[in-house]
């Protein structure tokens, strides 16, 4: 289609310009032509010729009257009349007169004869004496009367011809101009219709998502604004918003082409199911939305939400690879406070956000509490911005012990926030906020330096574990910061263990391997945290170079009652052993759990059974006590002496 337009555009413009140019030229030519007619002394010429016959007649009459009895005609009168005729002869013979009359041979001959006759008459006028002289003179002029009449007739006919020619030319000009104007009009209409078609196409393109063919955000917003203004009852309107869980993972592991195909498959599968919706649009990325505008829209929307989830039960074809994904759905209906379409969108978004925060692949209907939660998150985010400067952040340390004898191998540093009004705020609450707002980078940096500062007080055999968020791990300055923290506090690199979660691995595949290798080269230990909660855990162990893995507490806590978990822990330990990885069991809270993890092959662990997270003074106390016990047990004289001293 665009090709066709391009092909027409240039010729059409050329034709338009050509017609316009021709019309303007034609107008100028007409004006010039009119001026030409006006400038030529054409009217005068006709009069000049027409008066010749009367002037001749008056001369003859004057000559005749001169000889009548009691005549008052003088010789001067005759001379005047003759001079007038002489003058007329000169006028008729000027070039311009001849040209304007368009004299032919016949007219020229007439003029010559008249001239000769007037010249012949001249001496006879001067020598006029008798009536016989007068008769002879009149005889000379007699044929001139006829010739003057003929010349008049010829000139008049010529003038009529000229007028007819002018009329013809004007008529011709009129039709040409009319044609050009009509042509211009046609070109204008064509150009405008082309323009309108282009605009329609551009409008259409602007409101359609090119990937899925669904309406896009622009079209959706328009439809929502329209529905919002037309909905007479608040219950008539509902917005459903959904996105694909872990869509980024599909993009990262299968490539963006597969991701795109997944989106197309989703659109194709859902489209036939969504007749109840007024518009089904792709807003952005993997985010889709539907507007419902009918009685009891809320129930309809929730019904459709279930339909969508059912549709997601079957895996999608992404061009060879079948991918199973779930969808998280948020639904919102206008409340009394929602005056703008945007409010409704925000609510649907909050409902979707709530699903993501709780359990992916679920359906949530917006409720005001979500907005409250959102607002309090906003407030908390604001407060967190000041937390570092106000010294509200602190570190706690949880001992990591040898399961064989309970002795301390090291500590895991845990971030705490003491809010000036709300007191201690759970990391589960504020860490996501820090990650969303990007504050995690300065906070994480602070935690790293603080942890190293505290660890510098401990014996060199005691290690320190610090958690890194995905953002921190992707920070290009990470290695420099870590080296800086180590050197500033004189910590040997192998005492520091950086713990990252599986989420970090999922989000950034190849670069993670590179960073891990750099860190290990420096001598820093790395640990895979919360092992077993995410995706494809076992494959990660071979692909990424870790020193240790930390088995998630959910396996440990469930391990006493469920044999499966014990089996899993045992398998992980065996696999880790073969890969040369150390296994740390998290969340050991009871003696039974300790016994089980030990029997499963774990050598190291942490949890409330050993000690709760403690401040740096408590850490120092614990380490001193341990040292004291050790010296008692072994009866080590030097230690006892040292203590005495």
């Amino acid at each position, binding site marked *: 289609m665009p090709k066709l337009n391009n092909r027409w555009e240039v010729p059409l413009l050329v034709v338009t310009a050509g017609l316009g140019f021709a019309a303007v030229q034609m107008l100028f030519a007409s004006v010039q032509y009119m001026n030409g007619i*006006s*400038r*030529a*002394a*054409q*009217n*005068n010429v006709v009069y000049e010729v027409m*008066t010749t016959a009367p*002037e001749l007649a008056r001369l003859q009459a004057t000559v005749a009257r001169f000889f009548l009895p009691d005549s008052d005609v003088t010789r001067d009168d005759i001379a*005047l009349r*003759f*001079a*007038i005729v*002489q*003058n*007329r002869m*000169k*006028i008729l013979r*000027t*070039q*311009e*007169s001849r040209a*304007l009359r368009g004299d032919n041979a016949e007219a020229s001959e007439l003029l010559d004869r008249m001239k000769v006759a007037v010249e012949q008459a001249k001496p006879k006028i001067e020598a006029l004496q008798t009536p016989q002289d007068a008769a002879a003179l009149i005889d000379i002029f007699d044929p001139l009367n006829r010739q003057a009449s003929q010349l008049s007739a010829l000139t008049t006919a010529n003038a009529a011809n000229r007028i007819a020619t002018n009329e013809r030319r004007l008529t011709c000009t009129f039709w040409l101009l009319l044609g050009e104007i009509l042509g211009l009009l046609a070109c204008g209409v064509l150009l405008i219709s082309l323009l309108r078609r282009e605009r329609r196409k551009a409008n259409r393109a602007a409101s359609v998502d090119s990937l899925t063919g669904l309406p896009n955000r622009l079209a959706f917003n328009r439809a929502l604004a329209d529905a919002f203004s037309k909905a007479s009852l608040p219950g008539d309107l509902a917005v459903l918003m959904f996105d694909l869980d872990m869509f980024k993972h599909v993009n990262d592991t299968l490539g963006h082409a597969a991701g795109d195909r997944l989106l197309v498959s989703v659109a194709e599968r859902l489209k036939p199911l969504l007749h109840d919706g007024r518009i089904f649009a792709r807003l952005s990325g993997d985010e889709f939305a539907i507007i419902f505008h009918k009685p009891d829209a809320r129930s309809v929307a929730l019904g459709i939400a279930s339909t969508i989830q059912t549709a997601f039960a079957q895996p999608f074809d992404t061009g060879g690879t079948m991918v199973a994904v779930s969808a998280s759905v948020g639904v919102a209906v206008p409340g009394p406070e929602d005056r703008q379409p945007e409010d409704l969108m925000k609510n649907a978004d909050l409902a979707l956000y709530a699903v993501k925060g709780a359990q992916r692949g679920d359906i949530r209907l917006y409720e005001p509490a979500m907005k409250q939660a959102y607002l309090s998150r906003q407030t908390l985010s604001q407060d967190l911005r000041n937390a570092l400067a106000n010294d509200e952040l602190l570190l706690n340390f949880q001992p990591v012990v040898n399961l064989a004898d309970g002795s301390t191998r090291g500590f895991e540093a845990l971030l705490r926030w003491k809010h000036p009004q709300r007191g201690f705020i759970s990391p589960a609450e504020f860490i996501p906020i820090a990650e969303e707002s990007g504050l995690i980078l300065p906070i994480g940096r602070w935690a790293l330096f603080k942890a190293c500062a505290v660890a510098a007080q401990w014996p060199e055999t005691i290690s320190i574990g610090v958690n890194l968020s995905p953002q921190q791990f992707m920070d290009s300055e990470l290695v420099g910061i870590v080296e800086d923290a180590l050197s500033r506090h004189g910590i040997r690199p192998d005492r520091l263990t950086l713990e990252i979660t599986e989420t970090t691995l999922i989000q950034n595949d190849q670069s993670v391997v590179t960073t891990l290798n750099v860190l290990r080269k420096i001598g820093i230990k790395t640990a895979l945290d919360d092992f077993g909660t995410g995706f494809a855990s076992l494959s990660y162990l071979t692909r990424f170079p870790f020193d240790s893995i930390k088995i998630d507490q959910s396996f440990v806590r469930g391990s006493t009652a469920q044999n499966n978990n014990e089996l899993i822990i045992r398998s992980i330990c065996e696999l880790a052993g073969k890969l040369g990885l150390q296994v740390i069991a998290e969340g050991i809270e009871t003696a039974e759990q300790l016994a089980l993890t030990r029997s499963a092959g774990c050598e190291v662990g942490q949890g409330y059974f050993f000690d709760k997270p403690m401040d740096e003074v408590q850490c120092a106390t614990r380490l001193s006590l341990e040292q004291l016990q050790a010296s008692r047990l072994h009866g080590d004289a030097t230690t006892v002496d040292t203590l005495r001293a």
Partner: protein
Amino acid sequence: MATCLVAGRAAADLARPSGKTILTVGGRIRNTNDGAEAIFDLAMLDALGNTSFTTSTPWTDKPNRWEGVPLATLMAAVGADGTTLRATALNDYVVDMPLAGLDVEGAILADRRNGVPMPISDKGPLFIVYPFDDRPELRKQAVYMRCAWQVARLDVL
């Protein structure tokens, strides 16, 4: 403009011609020398102050030098008090022209061509000429019609 200037002049009698009368001015004029009319011989006309210019006309094959009193000057001299000037020729040709604009357009009542008085047999004795070559916008039918030759009489209407 011309009318205003003319109106400003006081009525005064003109001198009588000593030579042969070649022009009679009649109609609404204030300055007279022959009853209600003003008559002129060649010397009187010349005495009003001649102007000259060279121009071609549709009735002459070559450009000529035309000399004579400007019509505006003549109208002022006779104290013309009208809107239209009517010229009548010896051959009874009659043409009307507006008084206003005579001074701007520069029409003269030529009595000499190339320094020589004109005979009746060649557009004489008086010929109304416009400076067509200097002012091409005058080259149109309406102005051509005003160019009367063998002018013998002027009337202010």
